[in-house]
């Protein structure tokens, strides 16, 4: 179970400079505790996706290091923890039916078929798609495809969920609904979530803590705890507290880009 005293992710002055000299991310130090819902918020080019991919081990930091439960990412599974990554696009196999797409991580791990099928059915129920297990991805709407992708992320029973702008390509109404569903899953499963977005409102609605980032070079400029109780419903979106947090984050983002513009002029 999620224990707030335990650090799930420890980013120890990790930086990313590409071989051609581009500074994607200045050194970042950040600790994410078990059960937290942390959002990385910033404009494009601020290195938020880069940071998330480094946490997942998809990219190596050029400096510093990142540990998950005190282990390098390769040894996390041996230590009894699992992470799942949900991409910006649904990244489903177009030739495979929904249930086969969700079963993919279990198939790759060599899970026996019967046990895997039961877990797939379970995961599809959690995202409300149990009636679509034999559909092909192209027969589903963008929002439903994203749900399949989340089901695929949940089917391995992760305790850390990394999400890279998962709902960025969806319309606002669909996105809001998926955001609420995600919060319900996060609470029910006691997950630790690191969520990347460029939407201030999505960040406020979802997070226990928002990490504000800025571009050129990518860096962390601010951290804001969203001290509002869960479950959060639609009325939270129109509350004064919500607006106050949104303004706080917006000011933070503006201040960071203003500093950038000054240096550009100087």
């Amino acid at each position, binding site marked *: 179970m999620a224990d707030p005293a335990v650090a799930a992710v420890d980013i120890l002055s990790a930086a990313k400079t590409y071989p051609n000299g581009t500074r994607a991310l200045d050194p970042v130090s950040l600790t994410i505790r078990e059960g937290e819902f942390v959002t990385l918020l910033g404009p494009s080019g601020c290195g938020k996706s880069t940071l998330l991919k480094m946490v997942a081990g998809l990219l190596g930091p050029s400096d510093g290091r990142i540990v998950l439960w005190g282990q390098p990412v390769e040894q996390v599974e041996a230590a009894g923890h699992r992470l799942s990554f949900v991409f910006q696009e649904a990244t489903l196999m177009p*030739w495979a039916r929904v249930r086969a797409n969700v079963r993919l991580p279990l198939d790759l791990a060599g899970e026996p078929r019967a046990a895997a099928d039961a877990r797939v059915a379970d995961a599809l129920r959690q995202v409300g798609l149990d009636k679509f297990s034999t559909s092909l991805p192209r027969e589903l709407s963008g929002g439903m495809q994203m749900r399949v992708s989340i089901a695929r992320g949940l089917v391995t029973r992760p305790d850390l969920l990394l999400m890279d702008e998962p709902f960025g390509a969806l319309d606002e109404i669909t996105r809001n609904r998926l955001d609420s569903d995600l919060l319900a899953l996060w609470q029910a499963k006691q997950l630790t979530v690191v969520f990347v977005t460029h939407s201030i409102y999505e960040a406020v609605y979802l997070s226990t803590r928002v990490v504000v980032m800025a571009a050129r070079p990518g860096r962390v400029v601010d951290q804001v705890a969203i001290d509002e109780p869960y479950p959060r419903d639609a009325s939270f979106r129109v509350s004064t507290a919500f607006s106050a947090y949104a303004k706080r984050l917006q000011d933070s983002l503006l201040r960071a880009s203003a500093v950038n513009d000054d240096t550009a002029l100087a």
Partner: protein
Amino acid sequence: MMPLTPPSATPRLQRPEVQRVFYPALVAVLLLGLWQGLVVALEIPPFLVPSPLQVAQVMVADAGLLFGALVTTLKITLLAFVCATVLGVLIAFTFVQSRLVETALFPYAVLLQVTPIVAIAPLIIIWFKDPTLSLVMCATIVALFPVIANTTLGLRSVNPGLLSYFKLSRATRLQTLLRLRIPSALPYFFGGLRISSGLALIGAVVAEFVAGTGGTGTGLAYQILQAGYQLNIPRMFAALVLITLTGVLLFALMAMLSKWALGGWHESEVGHD
């Protein structure tokens, strides 16, 4: 996605599957009628241009000869097509193992493609005494390149997001190949097969032309040559019609195979309604 009215409610001629057969057939009937009419009206002798009816008569009268030749040509075509498919896929798999291998070998695949088969067919026929073997080799060379090029492209055309996902899930190289690269390559592979099936036939006919006068070939190209020497132009036309029909049939078969394999999911085969 769903048609607004059930198919049974649309008039027969407005259904796309009926239109696809009806209109080309209409054009064929009109052209054949025009041809027949012109030949009869202008009294053109059969050794210049035979009428469609005369061609049909020869087709029936020389059925044994012509269809025997067709079987020979078809055998060469199919053997070459199978060889080209198997070889092409193997070569494509070798290419995608490393960029270095592809860089080193690709120019030679192109070389194979750009060398005119008529120029090397006599050599192959001299080197390999067995007529079937030499003809199959020539036709394989002609049909090989599209399979190599398309399959290589397909094996590389993997959705980068899915590739990242496989990497993140610590999939082995073999798992990535079987579960990701091969399915992703299928639409390209079938595109290659469609081109190659026609090329295998062309290769078989061209090789027969080169070999034919040697007296070894009994395929359709040999019949065309013989009919030419004898000024039996209706039989020449009949052989030509058989070659054309075979090509169309092969193409249609490949299209069906492709539809069967990709029907459900790939954009190229999903119906637009």
